[in-house]
């Protein structure tokens, strides 16, 4: 007989297991609507591979696992996909999550690819593939994808199969062991085949005598499978407590059972593995205990994944108006904020208690520091200390008291004489610790990005400066080369400077000009030329500026300044021209008109001269032509005189 160890703490709450009549699996009619969440496990949600309106068969893959820690989702029955959207799911927050909605057709026909296989002909790799394809996630409650759990590279010497089911009320695993003992043993053998050299221990609490008997009989022929009966104590079904109970070793902080060479699987998971490998059936159903005084027909029901809680309670004739609905056991479960949610792979129990059965705690009293919680804590923490710290939001300190090792079993709250909702405090503190850790990570990340951005901007400025310097150096070198080519030529800069100095000296020595002399009335033509030159320069500079900008050159501001200056000069020149014209009584419009008139007359004269009648023409024709020519000549002369007078008004005045 194996020597049993014990784990610290623990409590003995009333079992309340008989109400749900363990040992019999009840069937429910197939619901018309199934709502299958994409994330029923720990890890990344699965990705839908079907479309709305698509016809699916029972067991068909409808969402593919994404990544290593993820599990695929399959159609629990045949029917039509009616929606892929966010629906409320069974979560304490009442939040929505992505689900696939399936309207069942009642046929419940299996997909053609689903078929049984002889495990003896499969190699280990094929067995693993069939397990992975079935989308099995730990059915004990945590929902860790089983294929990921099996894929450890650490040597496993013990396979612990958890049939403890320590929480009151729940009898789903008890029932499963009584009904499907052979399947569990077969599944255990499959796992043993994958785990080289391991032995298997199926652990059952001593409050399930029928299950123990049945399992012992089923395991009789298998020498490497041992049925271990442990005394009833809550929470002996917790993974860490189970390991300590059986092996006397503790899973290191932050470690996993594989660190001790142990692999834990729930009995329901092992049964699902058996179904996946031998029958090819994916994880689409499970046994759920429906119990509590509020339920008229309590029992263990085989339900399809995705069945609505409402539907199940209705079928079991549960009284839910006045009573809360608890998903999970009375110790660790939570009250469902909404019963229109689907049951998933990890849902093992629904309790509808009446007010006398599980009285809600309205009030808690002050902590009297009795220390009972410390005695009860299976994780050997200091619940009282954690409570004070959580209450005062001292989250950095609470971590030092190993809050994260709390398994939220509720043993401390169960024994608390002041009825303090201790676990709720710890859940809150855990959430805050995680949130703060996430914020710190994010801040660290943001800091890195900010700093690298600053560095990048600085580098850009420096590079710009470098380029400017390089260009200046290149220009200087070019200058020097030019000078070296014609050593005779004087330095143009020095020459220009000398000229400027000379000019200044001359200006200084010359007597200051009179204002009148300075303002020599400018020539009309000169002014026009000056304006045109400035306009051309402006055009050129603008173009150069635009080019430079387009090419992304750096020092465009100089060019821009030049353009602005030229613009001003151009304006000034145009103004000077206009002023001159108005001063001198010039009217560019009239001049233009006169020019046009003159040109017309000129053209007329030329035309007439060319079209002179030849010798054979009659005299009349000749004389007519002569008259026209004379008239045209007269018009031309007139136009010329008019144009001249406009162009040179001063002369007209003189004459």
């Amino acid at each position, binding site marked *: 007989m194996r020597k049993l160890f014990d784990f610290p703490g623990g409590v003995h709450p009333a079992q309340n297991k008989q109400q749900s009549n363990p040992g019999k699996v009840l069937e429910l009619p197939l619901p018309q609507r199934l709502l299958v969440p994409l994330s029923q496990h720990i890890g990344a949600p699965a990705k839908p591979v079907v479309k709305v309106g698509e016809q699916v068969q029972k067991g068909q893959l409808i969402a593919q696992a994404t990544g290593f820690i993820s599990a695929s989702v399959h159609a629990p029955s045949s029917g039509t996909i009616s929606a892929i959207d966010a629906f409320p799911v069974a979560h304490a927050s009442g*939040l929505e999550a992505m689900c696939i909605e399936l309207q069942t057709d009642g046929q419940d026909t299996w997909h053609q690819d689903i078929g049984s296989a002889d495990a003896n002909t499969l190699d280990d790799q094929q067995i693993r593939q069939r397990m992975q394809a079935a989308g099995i996630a730990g059915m004990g409650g945590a929902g860790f994808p089983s294929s990921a759990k099996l894929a450890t590279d650490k040597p496993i010497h013990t396979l612990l199969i958890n049939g403890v089911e320590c929480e009151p009320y729940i009898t789903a695993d008890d029932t499963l062991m009584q009904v499907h003992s052979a399947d569990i043993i077969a599944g255990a053998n499959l796992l043993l085949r994958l785990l080289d050299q391991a032995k298997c221990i199926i652990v059952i609490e001593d409050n399930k005598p029928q299950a123990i008997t049945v399992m012992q009989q089923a395991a009789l022929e298998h020498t490497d499978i041992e049925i271990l009966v442990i005394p009833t104590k809550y929470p002996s079904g917790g993974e860490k407590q189970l390991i300590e109970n059986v092996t006397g070793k503790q899973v290191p902080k932050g470690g996993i059972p594989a660190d001790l060479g142990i692999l834990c699987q729930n009995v329901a998971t092992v049964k699902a593995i058996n179904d996946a490998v031998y029958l090819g059936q994916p994880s689409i159903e499970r046994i759920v205990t429906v119990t509590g005084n509020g339920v008229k027909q309590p029992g263990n029901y085989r339900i399809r994944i995705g069945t609505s809680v409402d539907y199940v309670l209705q079928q079991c004739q549960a009284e839910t108006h006045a009573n809360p609905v608890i998903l999970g056991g009375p110790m660790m479960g939570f*009250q469902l904020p909404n019963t229109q949610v689907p049951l998933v792979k990890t849902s093992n129990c629904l309790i509808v208690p009446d007010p006398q059965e599980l009285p809600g705690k309205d009030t808690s009293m002050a902590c009297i520091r009795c220390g009972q919680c410390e005695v009860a804590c299976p994780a050997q923490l200091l619940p009282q200390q954690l409570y004070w710290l959580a209450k005062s939001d001292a989250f950095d300190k609470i971590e030092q008291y190993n809050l994260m090792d709390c398994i939220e079993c509720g043993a401390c709250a169960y024994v608390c004489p002041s009825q303090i909702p201790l676990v*709720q405090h710890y859940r809150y503190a855990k*959430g805050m610790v995680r949130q703060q850790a996430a914020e710190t990570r994010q801040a*660290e990340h*943001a800091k890195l*990005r900010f700093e690298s951005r600053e560095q990048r901007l600085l580098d850009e400025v420096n590079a710009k400066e470098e380029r400017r310097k390089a260009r200046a150096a290149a220009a200087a070198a070019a200058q020097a080369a030019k000078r070296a080519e014609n050593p005779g030529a004087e330095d143009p800069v020095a020459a220009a400077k000398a000229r400027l100095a000379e000019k200044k000296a001359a200006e200084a020595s010359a007597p200051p000009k009179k204002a009148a002399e300075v303002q020599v009335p400018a020539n009309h033509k000169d002014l026009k030329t000056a304006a045109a030159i400035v306009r051309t320069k402006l055009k050129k500079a603008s173009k150069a500026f635009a080019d430079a900008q387009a090419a992304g050159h750096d020092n465009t501001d100089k060019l821009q300044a030049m353009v602005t200056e030229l613009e001003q000069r151009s304006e000034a020149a145009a103004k000077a021209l206009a002023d001159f014209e108005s001063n001198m009584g010039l009217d560019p419009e009239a001049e233009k008109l006169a020019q046009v008139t003159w040109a017309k007359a000129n053209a007329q004269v030329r035309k007439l001269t060319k079209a002179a009648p030849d010798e054979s023409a009659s005299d009349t024709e000749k004389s007519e032509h002569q008259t026209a020519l004379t008239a045209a000549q007269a018009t031309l002369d007139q136009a010329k005189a008019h144009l001249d007078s406009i162009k040179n008004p001063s002369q007209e005045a003189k004459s």
Partner: protein
Amino acid sequence: MDILIYAVAALTLMALVFGGILGYAAKRFKVDGNPIVEQINELLPQTQCGQCGHPGCKPYAEAIANQTDPINRCPPGGETTIKALADLLGVEALPLDAEAGVDSVRKIAYIREDECIGCTKCIQACPVDAILGAAKQMHTVIIPECTGCDLCVEPCPVDCIDMLPVPVTSQTWHWQKPEQLIATDRHPRVVSQGDIPA
């Protein structure tokens, strides 16, 4: 007389020797910059939002270290940061300075993409390079990188940036603090959320 000279000489010698050691140590183990600045900077939320009046978190950390600024000018950090800073510096925690802004829920910038004209102004304003886009191309916010600093909202010429609160998902949700009822507050039974019989 001799004894006096010996004593003075011995003391002088010792002073020189120890002075030398101290001087060497001061050079050898010199700490560049003020280490407290780094510690303060660690506690700040690194949104680089500038609501404290400094161009980023580090300058504010420097200002706190130089005692030119109070510790309560960081709205994104809120009360938590003020408390942490007070603990670190051994000063009294102050209420958040309302001048700098109010502590609110964490927000994230979203660009209404069909309204974006591709001006790149928000990209230049973003302190953590969380906006992706190019001139005359639509811009978008890389959500996981956004710190919610608000700096991109103001430069947008078409006002197409919204600051929206970060939605709670089942990954980020956590239990709220239980309401503490004491026996003297006893009132008719209410079933509140989180009131699970345990």
